[in-house]
């Protein structure tokens, strides 16, 4: 039990560092920035309670906010992502198996796992970028950013998942 938490904390630190030191400086074509820390929330085991999931999400969002000078922005979005996750996971997971497992290609199958990831990533990016662009509203730029960033994040997640298998 404690071992599991230790591993989770290590991953937490790893994802925060990857996000703030590398990915936050990335802006392909001026539009696409991957938010790979969502992968940390997506990969928590399916049996986790909604409250615990939201607390983890709040923590990682807040730490990333502190590093990127956007207090509250990522935290709010990550909590929303964690809140929506169980329903989306139930929607796409196979009917028979409902035991405590980590969502992955192996446990869910490639197509349902990708559906699960794509839905939640698009949801997360839409909320995050909408909060950021709240002050000056430019719908076409916002839309382009959401699509480009979501594509990049999903690509990153799919490749990590592919390599791990």
């Amino acid at each position, binding site marked *: 039990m404690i071992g599991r938490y230790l591993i989770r904390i290590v991953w937490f630190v790893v994802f925060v560092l990857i996000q703030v030191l590398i990915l936050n400086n990335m802006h392909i074509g001026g539009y696409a920035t991957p938010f790979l820390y969502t992968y940390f929330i997506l990969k928590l085991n399916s049996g986790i309670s909604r409250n615990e999931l939201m607390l983890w999400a709040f923590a990682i969002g807040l730490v990333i906010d502190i*590093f990127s000078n956007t207090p509250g*922005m990522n*935290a*709010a979005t990550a909590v929303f992502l964690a809140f929506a996750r169980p329903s989306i996971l139930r929607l796409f997971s196979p009917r028979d198996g409902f035991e405590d497992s980590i969502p992955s290609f192996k446990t869910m199958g490639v197509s349902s796992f990708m559906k699960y990831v794509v839905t939640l990533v698009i949801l997360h990016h839409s909320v995050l970028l909408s*909060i950021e662009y709240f*002050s*000056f509203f430019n719908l076409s*730029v916002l839309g382009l950013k959401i699509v480009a960033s979501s594509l990049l994040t999903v690509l990153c997640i799919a490749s990590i998942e592919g390599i791990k298998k």
Partner: protein
Amino acid sequence: MRNLLNFLLKYNYWFLFILLEVASFVLLFRFNHYQGSTFFTSSNQLAGKVYKVSGGISSYFYLKSANEDLLDRNMLLERQLNTLQKELINHKVDSMFVDSLISKPLAEYFVFKANVINNSIIKVDNYITLDKGSADGIRSEMGVLNGSGVVGIVYMVSPHYSLVLSMLNSKSSISCKIVGSNYFGYLKWDGGNSKYAFLKDLPRHAQFNLGDTVVTSGYSTVFPAGVMVGTIDDMADSRDGLSYSLKVRLAADFGKLSDVRVISKKNQSEQKTLEDITKKQQ
């Protein structure tokens, strides 16, 4: 009663959800309106240390180009200095007077060296983190420059780090004028390209040419007059048609900032106090 309790227990995650969202939005809006504590920004101790390590590594990648820029600028300034000295001596001015002129421009200002340890250019509100803080003499509302031009204004300070409001921030607004004509306006950034900002509120009768230099006006206490900001790239009317809005190509390259100077006027607080008193009385 029991049903109500069951209901509340069953949906307890809603309460946590709302609680966490409210906490997040309080942070979000508080940061946007007040210069609150530095704890929730990258100028706090832990984030500052992490960025200091990574900034120390990545600054090596810019050394070569920074060096070349400095050499170019040095040569240009040396040539200008020589010509001006010759010109002055031709006019039979005392050489002591010439020497005193050289040390004059920054005599009214404190200058602190600092390194950029974190920087962003793609967000709507970009901030820069520096590795010097209040323990090194940095205070909020000091000006930040680099070799080629204005970079931003110090926003918050913690003991060893400081957070700079980059010119690439929707909240940034710097009073600027056009060299030669002295008409002034406010420089704002509208998001998008990090190379351009807009000079707004410039009167319609102002005269200028594309390619003219834009410098700080010196009206605020933050920057001395005449610090390079950029060059005029394009012109357009403002939305209400009452003034010009000029597209300015920024002199500082925000994509590769590493060494900067923080400056502060020696009697900044006096002018600030006077201005604040006037504002209160109105």
